[in-house]
């Protein structure tokens, strides 16, 4: 019998966890599956798959557009579960479904979503617009079918709320580290260090950090303080721009590999040093010719 909670626990016990998010069905099921496998080859330990919804109020423009494309291509819950099933044949990593509440509510009138999600191979579920106050029934269903119900914590979550969330949470806590919506941003908010320290001292589960993390330096900074890091909009964006599996794998490696200076940045730095050297040589030779005259 599968044990998703144990699987997630073991994963976090052995390393800092690198997490990628993809909007399921953007560019078709095949493309999502190939992208996911490429990201896993690039070092991703856990994958979040977004279930498209027509009104994604917590998402910025990158994921909004991906969602719209996926819906146009006819990706709904059933199709997402088919993607999960296909991925499950090729990888053992934990797969977490990301959804808004309404598609799940609607599905529950025609089939047992929780059972089918679990059987397809999903390990957890996060519902963006289902705070703990409204999540009792969902938690029960997740419990019945061995799905970890993932809770979100944000900069506006008070310590009192956190204490309650901590009691109910399973798998890991997802710290959405900034106000606003998902998107490609740079750096971390000013209150990050303070908030993550408070969160870590209270949480009894691993804490992963996401929302606007899209470069190596920020990801590594996050991993210094948290148990995992989530990169979403960036992967969705480059995928939409036509990136192939090779490029996606390289990008994941660049962001998640914990060398101090990743390869791409090293090459760039060497290039700029070379340009500087040439510039200096030119100045020297100019000075020489002036002296000669």
């Amino acid at each position, binding site marked *: 019998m599968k044990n998703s909670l144990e699987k997630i626990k073991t994963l976090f016990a052995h390393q800092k966890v690198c997490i990628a998010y993809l909007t399921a069905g953007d560019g078709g099921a095949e493309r999502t599956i190939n992208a996911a496998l490429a990201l896993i080859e690039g070092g991703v330990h856990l994958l979040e798959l977004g279930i498209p*919804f*027509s*009104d*994604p*109020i*917590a998402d*910025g423009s990158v994921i*909004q557009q991906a969602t*719209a494309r996926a*819906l146009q291509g006819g990706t*709904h*819950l059933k199709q997402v579960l088919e993607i999960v099933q296909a991925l499950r044949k090729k990888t053992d990593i934990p797969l977490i479904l990301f959804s808004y*509440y*309404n*598609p*799940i*509510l*609607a*599905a529950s*009138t*025609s089939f047992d979503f929780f059972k089918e999600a679990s059987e397809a191979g999903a390990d957890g579920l996060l519902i*963006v*617009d*289902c*705070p703990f*106050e*409204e999540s009792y029934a969902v938690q029960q269903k997740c419990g019945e079918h061995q799905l970890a119900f993932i*809770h*979100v*914590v*944000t*900069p*506006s*979550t*008070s310590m009192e*709320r956190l204490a309650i969330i901590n009691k109910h949470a399973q798998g890991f806590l997802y710290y*959405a580290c900034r*106000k*606003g*919506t998902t998107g490609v941003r740079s750096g971390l908010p000013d209150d990050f260090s303070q908030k993550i320290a408070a969160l870590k001292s209270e949480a009894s589960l691993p804490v992963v950090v996401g929302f606007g993390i899209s470069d190596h330096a920020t990801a590594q900074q996050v991993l210094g303080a948290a148990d995992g890091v989530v990169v979403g909009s960036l992967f969705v964006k480059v995928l939409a721009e036509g990136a192939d599996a090779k490029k996606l794998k390289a990008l994941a490696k660049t962001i998640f590999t914990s060398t101090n200076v990743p390869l791409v940045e090293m090459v760039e730095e060497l290039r700029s040093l070379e340009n500087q050297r040439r510039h200096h040589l030119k100045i020297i030779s100019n000075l020489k010719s002036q002296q000669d005259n």
Partner: protein
Amino acid sequence: MKNNYLLEAAECRYGAFGGRFMPEILMAPINELEKAFQASNRDPSFQSAFTALLKNYAGRPTALTEVTRFSEAIQGPRIFLKREDLLHTGAHKLNNALGQCLLAQRMGKTRIIAETGAGQHGVAMAAACAHLGLPCVIYMGSVDMERQAPNVMRMRLMGAEVVPVNNGTATLKDAVNEALRDWAESFPHSHYCLGSALGPHPYPEMVATFQSVIGKESRDQSIDLFSKNPDLVIACVGGGSNAIGIFSAFLNDPNVRLIGVEAGGHGSQLGEHAARFQAGTRGVLHGCYTYVLQDQHGQIAPTSSISAGLDYPAVGPQHAQLFEERRVEYVVASDDEAGAALKMLARTEGILPALESAHALAYLIKIAPSLPKEQYVLVNLSGRGDKDLPQIMKTYEK
């Protein structure tokens, strides 16, 4: 202040409906708002400031006008209009806008966000914010901006920033999405002033409370004019704020028949109307469990109505519960019927109703001959039709 349970959500719910289905980031501001609203409800100084604004700035009480020539023309009973069209800025929306702006100031918020469909809530917000000295950002679907162009100009003249929304169907629901995204970023200093009795708790309760003045006045005016409650009250239902406002005073009197009129649009297929109680199923949109127009996958369906203010796929949770209890009959009027009703009232009474309110009149026209002549019917004329002129010209002046 409270006069029945539908103005007061029990654990954030009306029966099964309502709730707070919001991203975690917005739970803190929603809880903060709830506390502030409950405190303001108990604070006499807040209540007197609100009442003074309604009287001296908005122009309350609004008249109750008997329309005998209109009644004659439709072979109807005695018909009275609650004249919210005479309120400053031309619709009932100002009641809620002033209430929420006062509350925002009390909470120390320095910026207001709003969405608008027909532009009536937007104009009311722009006016309230100008009067109270608050900067105001209003999200509006680009489709709505085109069909309600005069209101866009009015908002901008009063200093509001109007932001076009091109996502999705570019109408009211997309404007709400965008306003929520703004609020998720700006809540420490911004208040989101939702314009209808919709959204997560405490919005439905708060908006209904601020709009309940319509019902209270109507009840008092009815007693003055004909010494009893009306036999029938009709209102149009988009999100449902004008309807819950007027119904609220009569819910406890089972002798008062209540009818809510939804937008029948131009057809009965999903996407051709906004008749949630005819074709909708239960679901969650914008933080609230209610009747929603959606496809079998739970994707929110596009809607259609000649009236931008009724063009919304969900309905307020109080109405969902009233529908469930069968206390209110929910019916539809089509685009064409609303247009004809608008013309009829204009010709017979010199009152140009908003296309939204014209839906309530249109349904009354349908049933008027069957109503006993001695009955008293009260229609909430929720707004005036000046803003609809471009749409009316395009559609009806052929």
